């Protein structure tokens, strides 16, 4: 039996999609999904279908834009790319995550002596 995969926290998928697009430039849904899976080392439980809900959400907020184009192997696909507003949002969200993980690290790394206020 496989070890269980990580459930995605609410909102984390949107951030992943933004980061992927920021780094890779324009890409289609399948490409983004594959990329996230690869980067996470297949540790994340991602139904590839959920990526499309994330994409439409981001697009409605104006953080990404889309256009139909042709893929490497000459297939018609919808390509998404990050907008300027999206980059700003990404920066803000990434900063938030860093702070949060920092706090989580400290809390989880806490030892018995440090917990004692005295």
């Amino acid at each position, binding site marked *: 039996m496989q070890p269980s995969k990580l459930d995605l926290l609410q909102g984390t998928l949107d951030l992943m999609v933004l980061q992927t697009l920021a780094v890779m430039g324009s890409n*289609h*849904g*399948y*490409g983004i*999904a*594959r990329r996230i899976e690869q980067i996470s080392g297949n540790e994340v439980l991602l*139904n*590839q*279908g*959920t990526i*499309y*809900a*994330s994409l*439409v*959400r981001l697009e*409605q*907020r*104006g953080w990404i834009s889309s256009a139909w184009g042709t*893929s490497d*192997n000459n*297939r*018609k*696909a*919808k390509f998404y790319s990050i907008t300027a507003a999206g980059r700003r949002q990404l920066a803000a969200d990434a900063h938030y995550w860093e702070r949060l993980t920092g706090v989580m690290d400290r809390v989880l790394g806490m030892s018995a002596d440090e917990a004692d206020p005295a």
Partner: protein
Amino acid sequence: MSWLRRLAGRVTAFFSKRALDADLNAELAAHLEMAIEDNIARGLSPGEARRVALISIGGMEQAKDRHREARGIMTLDILLQDLKYTFRILLREPGFTTVAVLILALGIGANIAVFSVVNTLLLRPLPYRDAHELVWIAPPPQKCGLSCATYSTDAYDQFRVLSRSYQDVTGYFAFSNPDNLSLNLGGAPVPATSIDVIHNFFQLLGVHPAMGRVFTADDARNGAAPVVLLSDAWWRRQFAADPAIVGKAFDMNGRQTTVVGVLPPGFDFGAVFAPGTKVDAITPLNLYGPPRDWGNIITWIGRLKPGVTLAQAREDARMVAPKLCWNFKYPQSCGAYNDTPPVPVPLKDYVSGKLRRSLAVLWSAVGAILLIACVNLSNLLLARATARSKEFAMRGALGATRGRIVRQLLTESLILSGAGAVLGLCLAVVLVKWLAHQGAIALPLLSAVRIDGAALGWTVLIAVFAAVLFGLIPGLRMAGGNLHEALKDAGPGASQSRKHERTRAVLVVSEVALACMLLVGAGLLLRSFMRVLSVDLGFQPDRAAAIKVEYDDSAPTGDASTQKRTAIFQQVLARVGSIPGVEAAGIADYLPLGQNRAWGTPFPKGIKPPDKTPVEPLVYVVTPGYMRAMGTRLRGRDFTWDDAPKATNVVMISEGYARYLAQYANWPEGNAVGKLLSVGKNDLLVVGVVDDVHEETVDGETGWQIYYPVTQASPSGAQLVIRSSLPPGTLAGTVLRTLRDLNPKQPAAEFKPIKLLVSHAVSPRRFFMLLVGSFATLGLLLAALGIYGVISYSVTRKTQEIGIRMALGASASHVRHRVLVDTLRLAAIGVALGAMASVVAARLIASLLYATSPWDAATYIGMAVALLAVAALSGYIPALRASRVNPTVALRAN
């Protein structure tokens, strides 16, 4: 800003669903293809590649659903889905849908119609400018007719000047007879009804003419050229809506009268001030001409100054009252109104205040109908819900939440009640149209009843209310059920169904109870209506009819005029009396249940009258033969043509009056016949005592009457009354021809059966009785339907049980008996509860009853028996079906 853009995005997405879905499909298809290609490249077989690709997508449909959820407006999507589904379901069961919509349409339609009536009569202000400022100024009600409810022109002038509460005071002549105007266009004169008003009448009410102008003070001066204002209806009917009528003159009552204007269609004098009569024309009242000497003739209407309260106006009137004079010519008549001081009441209260209770009852009755309709619907839906419980359980198992299912059911209820409301509105429109044209019903403002914005709002309100009421119970019952149970529930004997049946029984019992209350109410109203109809009126309305006679009254006043009139009347009565079929004929100036007046209280000669008599006798000026024609019993002798002006002055008086006078005079055996009365300096010989006549109302107490002969007193018109052995209608032509022979100016006045006077007087009572009665019948029908539904359903459900019983030897009659007992048990509980509730609620209608106790045992028992009989009848059909169950078939089923 960004949320706005998001919302816009969602709304756009909602409306461009098709394009977006196509886009998404293409996108997902591309995704799948790419995934398959990658998988093949990794060395999987094409079939396996596809399978793995689909797994990693995690369900195409779920992906699409999430996408839609993220982009659009889910609530609306669900609503549309529910609507689509509901329509499909309702159309699949046309029988159920039709019955449900019809029941609701009846319930809602009745409610809208009654609301429109209540709204017009009670809630909406009168159709005048700032109607809340208008007051009716009259003495508190007294038992001496119109003469004690009106004031003289001098008192009017004084009141107008001395009162400080009013912007202005106006009034109208209260003693106009129907058909008092005769329009001569060449050919036979056309009868019409006109009312004299004080010239500021329309300015005060704030009514603007549709054409021309209203009256000015100049129109009412001595010697002013005669002018007239036409009602919209008469202008259309009689003058073919002539757009150039203003300024034209016509021969009215023998004088060239100029039309100065046409009143707007919304102004209906009769509807507000004289319910049940139509007024065709309005003429100005000359306050300083002859009317000055006619005594109490004007009713007053005032417009309060802004900010003046009713209490202040009352106080003001109390201060002014002692100063009022009956006629300035007689200084001793100042202070004549201490007994009848003017009291202002809101005009609206005067017009429709008396009807408040009746309308409240009517409103409660339709409310009960709506409740019964809802209960019925609840029952129908519950039966259906039981049949659909598996469907809902299945939907629950597939992931529908409880809220989602309740929502679906409520959508269905709303659609049903919406359809019911639309159909009900159509019904109400028809009903209200019909009501508005019931000119003969003596109810105020009836012609102004219409479906307006408020009524539409009310419709929406009760439609939603009904939907929630009848949809919620089945909805909660349904959605609250245990999935597991419902799926297992194989039908007969299962707990879920049993619980439903209990709910249904409770619903039916409450339905029967409501119907019982309605029936008791209607029964009480019907019983008191019958009592009213059997009242001894003091005259016999059957086979008698009256027609207004036009006669030449142009002789100089005094004896010459009396002699001329006597000669004309004598001739008329002789000719009419000889028409075959006419048994008796006589003339009176006023008829009972119509106009009246009082001339003071003659008292036994030589006895000092008390300061105040409880009542003043109403005066009628009649010819010999009138009593016989009316069918009024008479002791003593009738007037004769020999009771000439110079002979002894004679009168006839009513029993009640004679009894009162006998208390003061020592008449042997209290017999007034042959005794002398005196009033002022005149002596009056009582030649006859006649029955008390219901002169004002059928259901009220009788007052006193005194009759003067036309040969001595001056009548204010002539109503020819004939009594015939034939139906009076058949004589109409002959009588009119005879009158025309004698006087070519005789207009084609209406030949009115005396019965019509009575039915006009009781028309409001009949109107309410009929409405409540038909609502009760409707309630009974709905209750019967409810009982039938429940029993019939329970029989179907117990088919198997019945089969077993019959297989074990139960006879058909035994089975039938059991079902009937079940039915009657439900009905009996309902009737018992309903009767108890009626005992409490009957107080509400007590004041509407006549000579009937609100706890009239006969009515209660009769209604209970009727209800139980109907229940038995509606239970009998399912009982019959139950007894015909074929045991073998029943046991094999399921």
